[in-house]
């Protein structure tokens, strides 16, 4: 089985994100870029499937990113993935979600796969659309928000997280699954993994390599346009609960949390 994990390189989640007022894009060179934290769960899940049947399973990491994205691919390889491909081309800058999904679909067709694993969202643009769009363009079933994943023969089954529990969903492969944070605890890369990563292959492909239509990518090929942006308003003041009876106070805090579905 060939598993491909799609990963995005995003600005460090702790870093302050700066938007370029000219291009209306995130300034990615100003901050350290990291592996989209949501994608680490997808990598971990893929590695667990591979570790369960190492002779027959292969994990490939795929990303669309500038050349600096090589760093995050190396981290994924250090965690244990078998190889990686990077689609990198200056013409891709400014691509929107659909253009990204279009390119990913071509890329995955080019390298071939039985199971695609992705995160549920990126931490920078947070659209949460790429997985569904990608599955649609590949013409494969799309299983989203997996909090558990099992492969049996030629089909994949997930527990799909819902508000009040989970649904069991099954589909024949090839298929795409997006995984949630709760599914596992991603491993640290090991020292051997880091040292071994340089011996693993990272293929770098361009638009022509995958036969992409240049009019469908980049800012020009994107139908959505970021018109303007503004800073979010200051957060609303917190609620102060005052009660003379501590039990009454606790009760009201409890109700408050229940109301907001925090408990």
């Amino acid at each position: 089985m060939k598993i491909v994990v799609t990963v995005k390189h995003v600005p460090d989640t702790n870093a302050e994100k700066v938007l370029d007022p000219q291009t209306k894009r995130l300034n990615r060179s100003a901050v350290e870029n990291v592996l989209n934290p949501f994608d680490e769960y997808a990598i971990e899940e893929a590695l667990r499937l591979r570790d369960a049947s190492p002779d027959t399973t292969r994990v490939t990491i795929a990303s669309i990113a500038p050349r600096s994205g090589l760093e995050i691919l190396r981290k994924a390889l250090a965690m244990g993935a078998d190889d990686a491909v990077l689609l990198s081309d200056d013409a891709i800058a400014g691509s929107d979600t659909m253009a990204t999904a279009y390119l990913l679909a071509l890329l995955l067709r080019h390298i071939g796969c039985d199971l695609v694993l992705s995160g549920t969202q990126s931490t920078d643009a947070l659209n949460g659309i790429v997985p569904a769009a990608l599955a649609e363009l590949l013409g494969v079933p799309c299983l989203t928000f997996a909090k558990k994943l099992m492969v049996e023969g030629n089909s994949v089954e997930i527990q799909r997280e819902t508000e009040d529990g989970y649904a069991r969903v099954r589909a024949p492969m090839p298929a795409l699954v997006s995984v949630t944070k709760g599914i596992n605890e991603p491993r640290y890369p090991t020292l051997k993994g880091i040292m071994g990563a340089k011996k693993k292959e990272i293929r770098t492909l361009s638009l022509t390599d995958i036969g992409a239509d240049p009019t469908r990518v980049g800012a020009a090929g994107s139908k959505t346009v970021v018109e303007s942006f503004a800073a979010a308003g200051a957060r609303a003041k917190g609620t102060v609960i005052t009660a003379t009876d501590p039990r009454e106070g606790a009760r009201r805090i409890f109700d408050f949390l229940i109301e907001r579905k925090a408990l």
Partner: protein
Amino acid sequence: MNFDLTSEQQAIAKLCREFAEGEIAPHAAEWDARAEFPLATIRKMGELGLLGLPFPEKYGGAGADTVSYALAVMEIGRADASVGITMAAHVSLGSQPFFQFGTEEQKQRFLVPAARGEQLWAFGLTEPQAGSDAGATRTTAILRDGRWIINGSKCFITNAGTPMTGGVTITAVTGRSSDGKAEISNIIVPQDTPGYRRSEPYKKMGWRASDTRELSFDGAEVPEENLLGRRGKGFRQFLEILDGGRISVGALSVGLAQACYDAASRYAKERYQFGHPIASFQAVQFQLVDMAVEIELARTAVLKAAWLKDQGRDFATAAAMAKLFSGEVSRRAANAAVQIHGGYGFMDEYPVSRYWRDCKINEIGEGTNEIQRMVIARQLGLTGEHGS
């Protein structure tokens, strides 16, 4: 000259930082308070390959270089000096002798489990009567019927008694030359050797979560093949090991000094007095600036010594200088960090109080400041007698 780290060196430092922030820093205060050896965490470090970082893959290591190792110890030591010394003593003092002086068979038997992190190994040089004068060894090992019979004691030995300790390599007097001079050799003593016992851990001011014990050998017997390296070269060999060990103690000091700076600069920006954050007062700024400058220089000195070692060049003077300077920097940084915290810095709730207790050993262990200065004086050719 090139000060850039390679992508592997960066990745290793980053892994160590993530691991230290995620798995070590949150527990450091508690381990310190309870003087608890963090066994589960050390085992995890072994699984990640941190306990065999600079050894070749064929001996169970990760095959990384000394620069990476120094960066790793800095990051771990920044979160917890006790965990840092556990790692540094195991790698540089416990395991390195097998790599540097062991036969192929000894490497397979002792280095492989050590580098894989399955076992911790200790380095037994210091004795009650042989501290700075480390060649004044009194412990004896007599070869009889193909076995070494060991009698004597060692003190202040790191990692000697943890549940995952594999054993200790010691210096022992194995004979006398015709002019009566002691012949010192290195002998490997596995943990389960009959007649070899460890005391309870010492109660310490700092490095409280690290394991330090007194060892006693009462007719302890090991086979003849447990001789490490050449007979009679044991003291020389251990001095060579200490040359490399200084790089890791230097790195540990830099990590601790960095932790002091991080805590002090954060606090100085948050603490208001006279209507202003105390960081706005020049007297506080200058303390922070001095810390930052010294840490930068100490880090550079440690990494340079590590780099020289990686290039196969003579690194002994650079390592002694780096160890001496970093140790003093860590003590000054800890002192300033407590000063900037005022009375709060004197309270156990604040990590700087632990840093203050942890820093002092950096000026004592693996050769005191005075011994470093003597070593450097000799290397600079100032002493006449030994020349250089």
